[in-house]
């Protein structure tokens, strides 16, 4: 099922937050607990300050750097469902999408969002808004292929079905 919206309080991160900060290579692992415990252990541990339903609002180029999928998994394993950013680094975008996480590109959000204030990500109206402060910013629509992946909860689940129903598109 494709989610229609997410709500939570904004948790602000800056520009160019890289994968070595988000999930340092020391947490390279196949073990779920080890991967999960590495989230934001690279520099200042922001995750420990996040409340359960906070929504990360990042700046430009969020997740730049390594292709290590353990960084993507650390978000999934910690229950993060959606992230808003000015822009995402390309490989990070693909990796988190494959984990079934909604990445919402919303230019201008870093300046608008206020730490701790409630936000609504509305995927039907394609906007991120603050009812509290009375603003709404348009966000980029998700491409069809990505919607299919998210609908199934991630690339693996999507492919399992494709493979079961016969060879895929090629």
């Amino acid at each position: 099922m494709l989610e229609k919206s997410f709500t939570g309080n904004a948790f602000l991160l800056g520009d160019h937050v890289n994968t070595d900060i988000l999930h340092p290579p020391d947490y390279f692992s196949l073990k779920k607990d080890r991967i999960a415990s590495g989230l934001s252990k690279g520099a200042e541990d922001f995750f420990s300050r996040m409340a359960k339903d906070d929504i990360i609002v990042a700046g430009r180029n969020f997740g730049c750097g390594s292709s290590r999928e353990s960084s993507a998994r650390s978000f999934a394993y910690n229950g993060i469902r959606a992230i808003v950013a000015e822009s995402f680094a390309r490989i990070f975008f693909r990796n988190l999408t494959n984990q079934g996480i909604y990445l919402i590109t919303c230019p201008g959000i870093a300046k608008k969002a206020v730490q701790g204030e409630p936000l609504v990500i509305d995927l039907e109206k394609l906007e991120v808004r603050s009812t509290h402060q009375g603003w709404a910013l348009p966000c980029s629509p998700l491409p069809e292929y990505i919607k299919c992946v998210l609908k199934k909860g991630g690339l693996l689940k999507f492919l399992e079905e494709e493979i079961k129903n016969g060879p895929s598109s090629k």
Partner: protein
Amino acid sequence: MGKTLSEKILSAHAGHDVRAGEFAVACVDLVYVQDGTGPLTVRQLEKLGFKTVSSPQRSIVFIDHASPSPRQELSNDHRLLREFCRRTGAILSDTGNGISHNVASEDYINPGEVVVGADSHTCTGGALCAFATGMGSTDIAVAMALGHTWLRVPETWKIAVAGTFPKGVYAKDFMLHFIGTVSADGATYKALEFTGPAMESLPMSGRLTISNMAVESGAKAGLFNSDSVTKAFLESLGRPAGYRPLQADPDAAYEKIMNFDVSTLEPMVACPHFVDNVHPVGTVEPLAVNQVFIGTSTNGRLDDFRVAAAILKGKKVAPGVRLLVTPGSRRTLLDGLADGTIQTLAEAGGIITGPGCGACVGVHEGVLGDGEVCVATQNRNFKGRMGNPNAFIYLASPATAAATAITGRITDPREFL
């Protein structure tokens, strides 16, 4: 309307014409993983129920990151990867063979191919005119299993570079300058095509340096035309059959054209903690350094070590400085031993390590201490890179690194040329 290199290569692999902005399902010629990303790829293949890979002889597992392994868990990951190769027939490039991108460019990648790897610097292969790009473990598992992947055909920026490189200024300095100009996310999702006299005159080692760092501007791929340099490179490695000329059409549609001239370029460094924080070496505070690291998929080739050796010959590394020398591949190590380059670096006080990623990733040898300063020839100086968020990394060419090792302070290499 003509095609860019990316449009040409991806059209040929999709089986129909594709243009920038379109999604394509493209067959892949080479798929690889490394020991950080590979274990997850293996697990995902198992989850999907695949017992084999689509093309074992074009699927490679590189053990290059935590290599040799510094701890039990990683040693067990390596065991898992070796066992996977035994079971599926995928090629194993084990500890000591070198960095994935270096070995792939030397032994496997041909012009016109589509290459995907579970490492962000897979874009290195663009130097050989392949459409090469990095992805995560799950995407790579799918590419390995099915032999194809989905891609959005990127818009292309033509980077036209005129002039001749002044003495002491190298491909690395140009690429740092380029990234400093466009910023670390300026080219996100784009393909870059490096052309013009300054790029055409670069040896393959310099082209590989530039393509390797394409991702540091956010780009998906960084390509060079396949020309006489490509041909000579493949011939020198005993792979002449892999060569085919390939270039973008003159009337290809570019999203942007950027012009540079290297004639007045100076040696550059990227200062902590961002790759786009780039300044001429001469304008940077000559800080005392603790470690100098020469190697990596960016600058770990024989040409790079020769440049460093020419500067360090007959000299000594400054007291208190650790000079790490890590050949990018076994071939580089052997060639450097044969021509005396490695001997020169060792005599100067260099610590010669086994081929691999070495200190760059910060998972084993060469982890920096709190407050330490390192000049490195790698591609990233992020906070936390090299294993310590409280350290400071400056990115530079092998020449700047070598000059810095001698003086113990960040130094313009032209003082030694």
